[in-house]
């Protein structure tokens, strides 16, 4: 516990410092920093709606943050979470679109989830294999796979699965309201999940079962990395491949495994968006989740608990964006992006601080 607190100190300081600097920026622009801080907290945490949206926005970031963290623990930099989640999200919708009419919705939903995980895993596993077999650097290959995914998915959406005449680049729906009931493969929203417990969570909020999946993923990743022999091997390869090899651990196998796991986690974003929210594949649905995941992992120190907290912060920022834009005179929603950038900058400065403190004891 003490160790966890010590680990959290620096990211926390980075966040506080970023908010102070962000306040100065607001002040320079000519608005009140206090107003902006107030807007941030009230919009993100001040109401059930606020919390609901914060958690909803945090969900994909938990998945992508975990994805980046798992790869990083094996010494790999997965910049391709974006491509993996795009491919996975399309695959999720595709299962819903091509499943035979008569199949039960729950079965199709399960198959769609499986598709999300498998396609995400394969999309990341390919760069893993390329690295293990040919030494192709994963930073390059995962970026390339991002473009390939975007291209293929846009093509399929545009020319094969779009409703005739629909001006928006999206597939046909996989679930629709019929007589007030959502019919077709989907996962329940938080409203439906909490109703049996007697809690009346607003129906309009898009928060859904995928958020609970995200929490479970945090726990599973923790257990996997720190309690299993495979996690031990994966981390050993990440820290010192030569020593791992000496210990009889296959670098190649762990490289592929870490990338595949990373992609599977990224792919679960598709479950949240397709099965839990839009019930179709909407091209451009991802607000750069894969890239923000890198920041989340960095801020969360590649630890599941840290990733969860960082994702919540970024989710809150995403939620407050619109309110800050509307209710201030001069601050635009880009302030949130600036704040994220400053946080990352401060976190990245840590190495410098560590060096200094080592010198002076």
């Amino acid at each position: 516990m003490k160790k966890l607190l010590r680990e959290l100190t620096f990211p926390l300081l980075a966040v506080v410092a970023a908010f102070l600097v962000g306040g100065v920026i607001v002040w320079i622009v000519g608005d009140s920093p206090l107003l902006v801080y107030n807007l941030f907290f009230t919009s993100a945490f001040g109401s059930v709606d606020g919390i609901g949206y914060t958690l909803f926005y945090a969900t994909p970031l938990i998945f992508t943050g975990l994805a980046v963290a798992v790869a990083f623990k094996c010494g790999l930099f997965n910049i391709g979470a974006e491509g993996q989640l795009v491919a996975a999200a399309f695959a999720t919708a595709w299962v819903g679109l091509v499943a035979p009419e008569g199949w039960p919705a729950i079965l199709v939903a399960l198959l769609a989830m499986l598709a999300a995980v498998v396609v995400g895993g394969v999309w990341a596993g390919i760069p893993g294999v390329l690295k293990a077999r040919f030494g192709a650097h994963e930073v390059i290959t995962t970026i390339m796979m991002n473009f390939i995914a975007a291209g293929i998915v846009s093509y399929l959406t545009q020319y094969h699965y779009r409703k005739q005449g629909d001006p928006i680049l999206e597939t046909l729906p996989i679930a629709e309201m019929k007589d007030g009931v959502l019919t077709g493969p989907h996962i329940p929203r938080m409203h439906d999940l909490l109703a049996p417990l007697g809690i009346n969570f607003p129906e309009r909020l898009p928060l859904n079962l995928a958020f609970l999946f995200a929490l479970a993923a945090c726990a599973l990743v923790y257990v996997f990395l720190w309690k299993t022999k495979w996690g031990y091997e994966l981390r050993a390869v990440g820290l010192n491949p030569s020593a791992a090899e000496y210990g009889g651990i296959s670098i190649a196998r762990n490289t592929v495994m870490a990338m595949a796991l990373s992609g599977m986690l990224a792919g679960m974003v598709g479950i949240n968006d397709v099965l839990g929210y839009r019930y179709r594949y909407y091209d451009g649905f991802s607000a750069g989740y894969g890239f923000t995941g890198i920041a989340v992992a960095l801020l969360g120190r590649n630890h599941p608990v840290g990733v969860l907290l960082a994702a919540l912060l970024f989710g809150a920022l995403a939620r407050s964006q619109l309110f800050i834009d509307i209710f201030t005179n001069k601050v635009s929603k880009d302030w949130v992006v600036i704040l994220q950038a400053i946080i990352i900058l401060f976190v990245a400065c840590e190495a410098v601080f560590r060096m200094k403190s080592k010198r002076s004891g």
Partner: protein
Amino acid sequence: MAEDLKYAVEMRGVTKRFGDVLANDSISLAVESGSIHAIIGENGAGKSTAMNILYGFYAADSGEILIDGQARSIQNPGDAIRLGLGMVHQHFMLVEPLTVTENIILGSEPGSSFAIDFKQARARVRELSEQYGLRIDADARIEDLSVGQQQRVEILKTLYRGAQILILDEPTAVLTPQEVVEMFAILRSLRDRGKTIIIITHKLAEVLALSDRITVMRDGRVVGNISTREATAEGLARLMVGREVLLRVEKTDAHPKDAILVVNNLSLESSTVHGSLNDVSLEVRAGEILGIAGVEGNGQTELIEIIAGLRPQTRGEILLEGKSIDRLDPRRRKNLGIAHIPEDRHRRGLLLDFDLAANSILGVHRNSPLSGAVLLNEQIIAERANRLVREYDVRPPNIALPARALSGGNQQKLIVAREFDINPKLILVSQPTRGVDIGAIEFIHKKLIELRDAGAAILLVSAELDEILSLSDRVLVMYEGRVVGEVDPRSVSEEEIGLMMTGGKR
């Protein structure tokens, strides 16, 4: 006042604390101008910390430093260089593809702000090299130089920057016996021309042969300040360790039994002579230690790594108890009873950021009962790690500490504990005591002899000729990837074996 002036360096009451560890506890020492001053101590005694403070890498918590009798504040290496200090690190700080001259002027290039005056630089490097007998070609590329020559480039670099006081950190650790002799001659000639030299080391024989005065450190304190004339190896060892130490290996004659390891015509093709193997055959029997002598880089590393399964051979076969193990990966070989103490414990032997418990299972982490079908068995791992730490006297005995926090000797003891605990039939040992303190050397040697007597076959590679000759029952000499001869460690002279190691006699 006149008394003070003859000291080139004085440290008074210097204290440095890292977290909970008192690395330097009010140390005081004085180095006479124009002398060779040795600072000795076990790993973790604080000698490197003291020198890093002197050179401005660390800031002392308290205490003062005097250079040529003047109190000085040294905030960074730049200050140190301006005051005439120069440091040669154990790991060289050279850019391999660049030439000697380019390396030497790096950071203090002569000429205008746009162009470098190479001609002037080269002339100055030549002049210095000649003046001090360093014999370095100013235009050679670093990557083409031997380790000994690279070290001389480092010395040249400090001289080029006007160093009057040279600090050398373990300068002989990487040298062959012949190179050591050469290095000593250079250091003496530097001293005779008025330079002051501080060397950090733990090799007693070298200290006695080279230095004028000795400062002994233990546990962050200075425990002795002796003139070399009055010092003995036993006395210094006792000061360093704090108890009586056995400097000689005690062992009885070997009683070898069946052959455990047989290597037949092993070859490794490589683009360079260093790193190739040519038709190496050898046999290690149960209950004997076979030593491999040779200058580093003549194929010993490759030989050991091929036997351990860490790299494939080009030709030849390896038999363990008569069965080929050529196709087995390192883990399967370990499970057959091959223990391996790797030459570079930071690169191969340990995961420095893992705790001791996690390090204690590296290589056996898939074996029952340390792990089940899925989960690591943390309780059994902890119990075993605690037992190993206790039995092998790893300090501090806290299995939750990262391996990084241990001194070199204790890191090595942890590796030895892990490897010996599998009840090995064959032990591959590479540089077992490199960078390890005297107490731990004694311990590791004793353990090796114990295992030999218990019937293990041991293949030993070491750059320390003394170690090879005192531990081994038979010795093979390697040169450029070949076995060039076998000698009897009891009767061979150092000159004779030294000549074989450098290809002089076949």
